[in-house]
């Protein structure tokens, strides 16, 4: 539930809101907890709020690791498809 994903700030809007690019998806988020954030910077996003500003390298590393995990998960699901279908 405390899941966070890194996103890049694309535009800062009025009223403490911003648009962030999360792995290609544009989402509107609140930046009230990271008031110093600038366009082009990376943030960790949880439930529609930026929680912390991140260094670009660190954010890209997190995204890379998340995508890697996603691939492992997909390959695991494929390998065990028969078992999971049986469980359903």
């Amino acid at each position: 539930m405390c899941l966070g994903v890194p996103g890049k700030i694309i535009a800062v809007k009025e009223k403490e809101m911003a648009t962030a690019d999360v792995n290609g998806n544009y989402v509107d988020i609140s930046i009230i907890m990271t008031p110093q954030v600038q366009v082009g910077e990376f943030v960790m996003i949880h439930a529609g709020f930026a929680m912390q500003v991140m260094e670009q390298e660190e954010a890209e590393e997190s995204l890379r690791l998340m995508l890697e995990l996603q691939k492992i998960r997909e390959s695991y699901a494929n390998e065990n498809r028969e078992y999971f279908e049986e469980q359903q």
Partner: protein
Amino acid sequence: MKTESILKNNNEELLQEIQTENRKLALMEVCGTHTMAIAKSGIRNLLPPNLKLLSGPGCPVCVTSQGDIDSVIELVKETEIILVTFGDMIRVPGSNSSLQEARSQGADVRVAYSPLDGLEIARKNPGREVVFLGIGFETTAPLVGSTIEKARRQIVSNFSVLSLHKLVPPALEVIFSDPDIKVDGLICPGHVSVIIGLEPYRLLAEKYSQPCVITGFENNDILEGIAMLLLQIRKKEALAEIQYRRVVKKEGNPVAQQILQRVFKATGARWRGLGYIPDSGLEIRSEYKRFDAREKFNVAEIEDQPIRGCACGEVLTGKISPHECSFFGRACTPLNPVGPCMVSHEGACAAYYRYSPLKGGKK
């Protein structure tokens, strides 16, 4: 930093280092995302048998008491409100029903990604009362607090929050004080710590002589966090350290901490598995009471009616592993869950069922 010497980017090297451990040790994680990440990665199976990874009370849905869930179900059944909540909550079984069942019987229960979605629903439905169910630890509570402040600023008077938020450090004190729970080190939650920073763990590490490492969620993070804990144990140290330096700052997020202070105050709360813990919950301050659903709808406190035979309480405190519950994989599955640890996708039972199917699911 003291741990620099063991910082390696190579999972294999870290794993080899961990596998040399020969003492009987138990490390506990207290974050549902860690529970899932550890189960997904298969790390548990790669550790030597003397090194145990326990799942603690880290899933906010799972630690919500049975009585609190019953109160919410009663609220939606007896009023005309729109209840907005995070997804996992709607399937959690109460004593007789669940929010999902209440919805199928006509209650207006909606799932949202963000508390801001709840505010938007209130804005679009001015003639209806909208209650956001505030579940979560220090990671989520500031977001809900900020949404309450926004509702006050924008005068959205049909929006309120039922706060069941909980604080992690008081629960850790209970874990460390329980003679039946043997823990040698703590894998501390990454995103809770983004908000609260290092200091609460420094106090705990000092008071209970327990090594604490704030750890990230990728395989490399978890292995490194474990290696850092083992190094401390080997050196007979009990320090609070940050492995998840990509996001966690020593001071946490001061803006979020101020929101928490402004909107909430600590109060006693009931935890599944741990019972009543003083000052471990968050109630909405009187300055914001018109946004407090508990006041607005006079929400009744309902006594806990534990589910017979369900061992979620023992699972949540690391006393047993999910495989040791007699319901696991038989009477209790993700499709037909008996207890919350099988409902929430971050629950220890759901994680074991999903990722250790041959051991657990087909016993």
